[in-house]
């Protein structure tokens, strides 16, 4: 008999050390604790009395999140400030694995969060990293400076061309970059439509691709069957799925 607290996955409280408004909709939360995690893994954030929702790690040491305000829970998160606490379970799921010497990362919306974590790892290993940051409009481009600081080549694209580039959707921009940069591997996180288009591109260009997908999460631990994508569980088999290309 051991004590009853062995190996549990109970929520762990952490305190917010810093909140930074990144875009009109997205805030960065830097916490006072660390986790051992891979880029692409996610955590479940619990706000007692409110709900528990999945978020990708933007960094694990210290735990850092980029949260877009889209509904009740994320609104509550945006009301938190330095010194407030939140609770987390995880990390869960399969993260990105690094492959290739020259990586192209495509970030749609808050999809930039896990890709920033990935970029840090990849740059730390001296790999060449190009990033496409995509958004509706210029002011929503997320973590552009972060990627630059990490030593990535940053490209942007917006639906409305407000970034002084021709208005394009992310897949179109990615296809241009595939041709011009000829990367060895594609990594992406963003809306489902974008990911589906990129999956098609990867097959077409015979490029290995790792896509981080979303699904409705309850347990986060592969039990409840809420997060299916075909016969795969996004929480356990994903959220990162690899296409051989």
């Amino acid at each position, binding site marked *: 008999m051991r004590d009853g607290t*062995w190996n549990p996955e109970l929520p762990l*409280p952490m305190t917010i050390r810093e909140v930074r408004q990144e875009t009109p909709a997205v805030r960065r939360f830097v916490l006072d604790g660390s986790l051992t995690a891979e880029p692409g893994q996610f955590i479940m954030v619990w706000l007692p009395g409110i709900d528990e929702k999945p978020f990708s790690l933007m960094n694990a040491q210290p735990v850092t999140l980029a949260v877009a305000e889209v509904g009740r829970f994320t609104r509550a998160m945006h009301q938190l400030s330095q010194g407030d606490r939140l609770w987390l379970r995880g990390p869960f799921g399969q993260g990105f694995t690094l492959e290739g010497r020259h990586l192209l990362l495509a970030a749609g919306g808050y999809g930039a969060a896990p890709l920033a974590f990935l970029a840090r790892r990849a740059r730390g290993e001296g790999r060449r990293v190009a990033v496409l940051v995509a958004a509706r409009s210029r002011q929503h481009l997320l973590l552009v400076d972060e990627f630059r600081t990490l030593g990535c080549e940053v490209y942007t694209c917006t639906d409305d061309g407000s970034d002084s580039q021709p208005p394009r959707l992310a897949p179109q921009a990615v296809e241009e970059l595939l041709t011009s940069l000829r990367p060895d591997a594609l990594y992406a996180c963003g809306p489902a439509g974008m990911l589906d288009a990129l999956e098609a591109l990867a097959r077409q260009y015979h490029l290995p691709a790792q896509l981080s997908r979303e699904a409705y999460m309850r347990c986060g631990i592969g039990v409840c069957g809420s997060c299916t994508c*075909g*016969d795969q569980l996004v929480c356990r088999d994903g959220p990162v799925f690899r296409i051989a290309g």
Partner: protein
Amino acid sequence: MAEQLSPDLRVNLCGVLLPNPLVLASGILGTTAELMERVAKNGAGAVTCKSCGPEPRAGHPNPTVLDWGPGLINAVGLANPGIDEAVEILRETRRRLQPLGVPLIASVFADSVKGFAEVTRRVCAVPPDLVELNISCPNVEAEFGRPFSLDPDAAAEVTRAARAVCDRPLLVKLSPNVTDVVAIGKAVVAAGADGLTAINTLGPGMVIDIESGWPILANRVGGVSGPAIRPIAVRIVYDLWAHLRVPIIGTGGVTCGRDVIEMIMAGATAVGIGSAVIQGGPAVFSRIAAEVRDYLASHGYASLNEIRGLAHARRHMEP
């Protein structure tokens, strides 16, 4: 050494042949046809779908499932797409499972006797290989009132109503949260159940976060499953078998071949596996099946029939 035949893992569950005794328990992974097919391909002997009810239900808000160490605690709250969509999912599941020879068990629930009859009637059109009545979910009490499984008369009434419209073998899933589970078992068997599934989750229980003072589950309380409940499940299977001798899916805390053998020695015909999928995902079925096969082979048993109910035959001699 003598030539040794590989032991026969097949079991006959109320007339339905299972390639092995391991049954995916309801509420675990049983949400889509693709996922249930994957579980079957990974070595399950039968799969039970997530319990479906008359109407779509969103279930409780998160947190709904927690790993508290010795087990899980959950209050998913019977999230399900409702019988209309469930029937579609079950049809597709049946289509995918049939070539694999893995039977499908349709789990149903409702908040009334009529509702149970109606949902049972609807799923029988699929048809599944067996129907399981979930009269024992402890996580929806606030909404549904006391589960039917807590009272012999209520349990019998639901069973009778479902039996009347059900042309498949009928299992009733029992709750451990009663003083006398055998009385409930007797009532539902008298009312027409062909077999029993025991047990549903224990409790409910509660886990409190000591930093915030909040019960962690949004529903505050939830049903306990996993290793923590295994001795309770084994004892209940033992008692049911002693008094009823009907086929039982022994369920609760099984995580390895040893636990399967224990359940079968207690009297189980088949063995449900739920929480254990967090250890390795669907592949847990082939791992456990291999452990069961190894046990039988190394002990010289040709089939599970040789050990079923063995614990009942072990009787102390008076000094």
